[in-house]
Structure formats: structure tokens, C-alpha cells
């Protein structure tokens, strides 16, 4: 019997956008407000899991062609890489820097290297969470 998931799929289409926006908000906001790479990554993973639940694994995999194991590895590499950059500049490992720039649209904006580090964290969390759930769901 083929199930009819119209409502679920319709809601998901809207909800995923909201969740992804919220998770990006959480992630970007982490420097000054509650949030950050970990929460942001987990809520992104939640959005992806929701997609899997409502549309099925095959269909999502067709549209998001991404190996989440690699994503996790890339996240760790980014985190280590920011640390190494500091070494290249002659500072101790993982020294973070920040400054304020006047950007065209955003105005006076603070850009911090910690954000890149946090990106690494987020990618690692997304990759791992999705990877675990996918592995378990494929175990039949």
C-alpha cells in the first residue's frame, strides 16, 4: 500500500526552510548570543533528517549529493586549519583574531576567525549526526 504523505511533505517544504534559516541564525549569532556551531549544526542536521523522513532516503540523496562522512572530515580539517593558520603567522596554535570592517551592505561588521573555526564545528556536527542516522537507517 502506497502511503500518501501530502500533508507531511507540504509542511516539510515550508518547515525545512524555516528550520534552516533558524539554524543559520543560531550559527551566525553564536558569537554574541546563545547559539554557535554546535547548536547550529545540530538543527541543520534536524532539517535534513526531516527531509529524509518525509521524502525517503533515495529522493533526498538524488538532490543532496553529498557524502556526510566527508563533510564531517572537512569540518575537522577546517577547525585544525584555522589553528594552523595562526601558526603560519607566528602565533601559538589556535590563536583567534577579530576586527571590525565597514562592509557595503552590512555596515560596520565584526569579522572573527573564530567564525571559521565554528564553521568547522558545525560541519563536523552536521556530518556526524546525519551520518549516524543514515547508517542506522540503512541497517536492514
Amino acid at each position, binding site marked *: 500500500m502506497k502511503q500518501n504523505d501530502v500533508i507531511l511533505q507540504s509542511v516539510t517544504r515550508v518547515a525545512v526552510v524555516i528550520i534552516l534559516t533558524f539554524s543559520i541564525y543560531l550559527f551566525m549569532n553564536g558569537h554574541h548570543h*546563545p547559539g554557535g556551531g554546535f547548536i547550529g549544526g545540530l538543527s541543520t542536521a534536524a532539517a535534513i533528517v526531516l527531509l529524509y523522513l518525509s521524502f525517503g532516503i533515495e529522493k533526498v540523496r538524488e538532490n543532496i549529493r553529498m557524502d556526510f562522512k566527508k563533510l564531517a572530515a572537512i*569540518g575537522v580539517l577546517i577547525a585544525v586549519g584555522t589553528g594552523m593558520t595562526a601558526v603560519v603567522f607566528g602565533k601559538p596554535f589556535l590563536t583567534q583574531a577579530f576586527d571590525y570592517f565597514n562592509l557595503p551592505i552590512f555596515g560596520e561588521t565584526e569579522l572573527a576567525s573564530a567564525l571559521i573555526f565554528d564553521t568547522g564545528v558545525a560541519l563536523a556536527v552536521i*556530518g556526524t549526526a546525519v551520518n549516524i542516522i543514515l547508517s*542506522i537507517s540503512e541497517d536492514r
Partner: protein
Amino acid sequence: MITLYLFIFLPFIFACIVPLLYKYLNRQVHTGWFVLVVPLSILIYLLTFIPAVASGETFEYTFSWIPSLGIHITSYVDGLGLLFGLLISGVGALVILYSIFYMSKVREALHNFYIYLLMFMGAMLGLVFSDHLLAFYGFWELTSVSSFLLISYWYERKSSRQGAMKSMLITVFGGFGMLAGFIMLIMMADTYSIRELIANMDVIQGHSLFIPAMLCILLGAFTKSAQFPFSIWLPDAMEAPTPVSSYLHSATMVKAGIYLVARMTPIFGGSPVWFWIVSGVGIITLLYGSLTALRQTDLKPLLAYSTISQLGLIMSLLGIGSLAVYFGPGESGTVFTVATFAALFHLFNHSTFKGSLFMVVGIIDHETGRRDIRYLGGLMHVMPITFTIALVGGLSMAGLPPFNGFLSKEMFFAAVLDVSKAGIFGLNSIGALFPVIAWVASIFTFVYCMIFVLKTFGGKYHPERLNRKVHEAPIGMLIAPMVLGLLVVLVFFFPNVLGKYILAPALTAVLPMMTVSSYDLKISAWHGINYELLMTLGVILLGGLLYMAKKRWLPTARKFPQGWTLNHFFNEGLLSAERWSASLTNRYMTGSLRHYLLYIFVFFVLLLLGSLLWFHGIRFDFSDNAMINIFDAGLVICMVISALTVLLAANRIVAIVALGALGYMVSMFFVIFRAPDLALTQMVVETVTTVLFLLCFYHLPKLKRTIERISFKWTNLVVSIAVGLTVTVLGLSANGHKLFEPITSFFENSYKLAGAKNIVNAILVDFRGFDTMLEISVLTIAGLGVYVLIRQRSKRGKEHEAE
């Protein structure tokens, strides 16, 4: 002078090139011929020391090995070392010569044999010339190891392996004891050098560790020298090739313990404990060895027990000689100095005659294929030269003139007679036992010597009992025992040459406090008619009678119950030790994780609670605590309820859900305590873990799905309450013990330092970003782990299906 080191280490160096010689030249020349050069050159080199050492000189060379720890390889040449060195190299040369003809060039792995033998020789040489205690110990263990290798030379035989293992266990056990004793000595006198120990004698003798150190060192000496009751390894070591038995178990290794006792006499001698243990154990060993030798039918064990007995004789003489240290220079001291002299003399004699006797046994074995005296007999006419050598060695062992054993046995009788009259150390009461035991043991010695010679060579010749055509041994095999037999006779006629040049300096080394002039060392074969001579006559008379009547009592003696032998006790002890430790291990290593957790928790509670109580660490201080408001109290009550639900839940779903509730409650706590980041994370993570738990629950095996309550166990309840109590007490005590201000004030200026208003995030990514970096690595590894575990399993499952 580097040459001494060169000669001591020559065997080791040469051992390195033996495999090459064996590989490339063995087809043409027996490897033994090359090896023979080593002991010969050492012998010649050591002979050059004799004149100087005889005139009282000593030589010392130091090679710094670990200077920062004060460990050197100090070689010290004095009379005692030289005596042993000459024995080792001399008998070594003869044994190698003998082995060239004994060991087949074609059938045997000669390179192994000669490497082990050279290793052993080098270790023995290093041992007797060592002045440094730790170097001494090193060489000592090397002799144990190399003799282990030599005994198990024919490793495909079970009995060889067992004999080797037994000797290894016993000698290494003693070696460790000796090491402990050495360390105590080093602690007492603060020096590693034996000579400096002797110089600091008064410090050592007044020290409380004096007796423990002595007992430990004696343990080492007794195990190595096969004294009672550690003698059991020596007969089993007879599984070695005969040249090895001849070398190790008559001339060298078993004398290492004798050497140790002689070396330590200046330090420990003069104490009643030393005297009683050394001479008492020695004389018991003498009796035990001679009695047990009578019961043997195999020639090699017979000689092994006779070795044990003779070593006991030497040991008891050393014990008696240590009384000279007590008396000091003077008339009584001189009397006992003679005992030490007799010990050294008999040591030399024993090496000569026992070496030759072993070689004779080897020849008989080699030519007839039998070693059991019940099959042998009448070989006198077939092998006249061998018979002559055996007769010389046997009569010398029995203590008859005109052989050197007679001289040292007379001196032995004189010493035991003297000691019974010494009147110190409680000798008045039981001192008379010494001459009696010695005399009885000598009678037995005489009887087994007669059995050895006459049962093998006398009587009727039975060629049908032997599986080979018997003829005289080749001349090469006879040279070495002939040389030794010649020495036996020569020493009898010219004992004073040996005495003056070799034994007298050795005696000075053993008893340095006796000035040379205080004793007169003339060995003479004829003292006139005295007690000793009468005792010897009695030995011959009674021994002869006993031998005549041997058919009446010998079979009875041989029926000695096996269950009473020391060997039996050792084997049973070893077996039961194995059984006992296996059952002990099986009892607590149950394989059940619950038990191991119990051990861990009990240990945890005992250690922490114990140390808290021990150091009076339990102190509660609630003055700094914040007020408890209604939200806190309500949440705590809810948490306790859900925790109890987890414990008492009737099925697993309830437990999982209650656990989830607990997690959400914790996140509520984070909200109340103003930790928004933690609350967010906790919420999401709790959700994920609950989902995973449900997943696990769903996949539980369907076979045993009966949902039952957790069975109740008192121990678990007690342990878990104890753990909870410990942690609570620890937490509360720690809270009341704030020693310094927390460093949170530093993180408060995170905006200035890291440009972040969120302190938590600033700490995570900036101040302590290293932790975060590793945590995401942990996460990734966990993810990959899940992936790999599942993939591997499903892949294997597919393979199973394919099959």
C-alpha cells in the same frame, strides 16, 4: 690493563664467530678445534699470574660501565679468583677437547653447543673475577641462563626440557634472593665493591640487616651449589650431554655457590648463624647426597648425587673454616684455618676426579649405549684404559691413598674432629654429631664409589645385554680424563706445590685477617697414626663389608617410596601452585562485566571514602550557598521521581521515556541557572539519544523478549548507595573547601579579548578552542565508528547469505 678484560670476554667474542666457523668449516674440521683455542689461551694467560699472586700481590682493573650509577665491571685477581679461573679454563679446555670426540660432527648442532658453552665459560670467568656486586650478579644469572640452554641442548627430549626448567626455576629463585642480599649489603656499607665491604666489616656486622642479607645470599649460594634441599635440580640436569655435565655439574657452575660462600666468609664468618647454616646444611647435604647416590642405578644420577654430597662436604668445611674469623689469629684460629684450606683443596680435587669420572661415564655411554649398572659389567678387559681412569677417580672420590681425595678427606676428618672440640656456638652439646655424620657419610661414599667402579667394570661381561660391539674409546676421548686422572695422582705426591702457589693465596683471600705466618700449610700424606687415619681405616673396613653385603640391603634401599622424595614435593608443589593460582584467577576473573563493575565501584568507594576519613576531609560549609527557591525544589523532586521510575520501571519503554524526562529536566535546570547554550544543546542531544534508545529497544532480539523486572540484589543496592553517598559527600566537602577565587573574572572581558559577547561561545572557540577541536574529532570518530560497525556487520551478513 686491558688484556684481562680481553681474556674474560674472549669467550663471548669468540662465541660470535662460532656460527661462521660452523657454517663454512665444519665439513672439514670439527668446530671444537677452533673453540679449544679459547680456554687454552685463557689458561696460559692466567698461569702467568701465579708467581705474582703467590707472593701476595693482587691485581685490579676497572672498566666504567654506568659511571653515573657507580656501576663498573671491576676485575679483581686474587688467589681465590685465580684458583677458580684456572679450574674453569683448565677443565674447560679438557672438556672441549673431550667434546670434540664425543659430539658428532654430522649429527649434532655444534654451533649451538659451543656458543652456549663459551657463554657459560665467559660468565663463570666474569663471576669469579668480579669485585663489583652487581656485575657479579649479572654474570651469575648469565651462568644460570647458559646452563639452562646447555641442559636443554637436546630440546626434542621431554626430560631435557623438564630438567632445564627445574634448574632454571631453582637457580634463578636463589639468584633473586642473592640479589636482594647484595642490595642489602650495598645499603649497609654504601659501596658496591666486595673488597670495600670487607674493609667496612664492623659497620655491616652491627647493622640490623646483617642477618637478612646473610640469609638471602646463602639462599643464592645453596641453590646454585645444589645444597639440601635445593639439590633436586642437579640429578635432572644430567639430561645434558656428558661434556656439559662434566663441566657444569662437577667443575664450575655448582662451585659458584662455593665461591660465593668463600668470598663472603670475611664479611659474615664469625657469626654463629653463618657457621650453623653453612656447616649444618653442608653436612646434611653430605649425608643426604651419599645416601641417595647409593640408590641410583643410572651412572649419571649416581655421579650427580655424589657431586651433591661432595659439595656438601666442601660447604661444611667452609662453615667450619669460618670459625677462624671468630677466633682471629692465634692457635684456635689456626686450627680452623686448616679447615678452609681443606675446603679449597677438596674443591680442586673434586674438580679433577669428578670431571674425569663424568668423562668416563660419557665414554661408557658412547661405547656401550648403556648407562645403567644393571646392564653393565665386566668392562675391565674390554676397556682397560677407561677402567684405570675410573679406578683412579673412584678411589680418589672414596678417599683412598695414593690419590688426592685421601689427603683432603683426612683434612676433613681433622676439621670435624676439631669443631666438635671448639666449645663455642653451642657446639658442646651437639658438636660430637659432626664427626659421626661425616664418618657415616664417608662410609656411604666409599660404598657408592665401589658400586660405581666394580659394578661397571668388574663382574662378568655380558655382550648380549649391550646393543653395540664394545671396544676401547678412541684416544682423543681418553686424553682429557687421562690428564685429569694424572692430576689426581700428581697432587697426591706433590700436594705442596699446589698448596704453596695456588691454594695458599686463595686461603689468604678467604681469610684475609689471618696472617700468613700464623698458619703452617704443609700437606703431608702421613701424619703418623692418629684419629683421622683410624677413621679412614674404619671407612674402608665398614664400607668394604657393606659392599660385600650389598645384595641384602641395596634392593630394600632402592624401594624408597617415591612419595617421600624432595623431587616429588617439588613437582607436587609446582603443580598445586599452578592449580591454586588457576582456581584463584578463575574465581575472580569470572568474565562477567557486572562483577568487574562491582570490583571497580567497591574499590572506588573504599579508596575515596577511606582517604576522606583518614585525612579528616569531611567538612560541610553551607554558608556560601545560594537560597533555594521553589523552582529548584520542584525540579529536584521531579528529577528524583523520574530517576526512581527508571530504576523501578516494569518495562524498558517506561525506563527510556523516564530517562528522557530526566534529560529534559536537566535542560530546565540549565534554563533556571541561566545557561541558554547548555539548555539548547541538552535538549537536542537528549532528543537524539532518546530516539537512539528507542531504536535499540526496537531491535532487541525477539527470542527472549519476556519483559521482566530487574532482579533485586542486596550487594548491588549496598554498593550503589555507597557510591552515591561517596560522591555526594565528596561534592559537598569540595564545595565547602574553596581554596581560591575562581578564574571566571578573566572570561568576563571576552568582548574585549575575543570580540564576543557570548562568553560560553568565546570560551569554546577562542579561549579554549583546543578542547572543542578535539571534541569534534571525537564526534567524527564516533560517527565513523557507527558507520564502520554497521557496514562491516551487514557485509558479513551478506557473505553468510551468499554461502
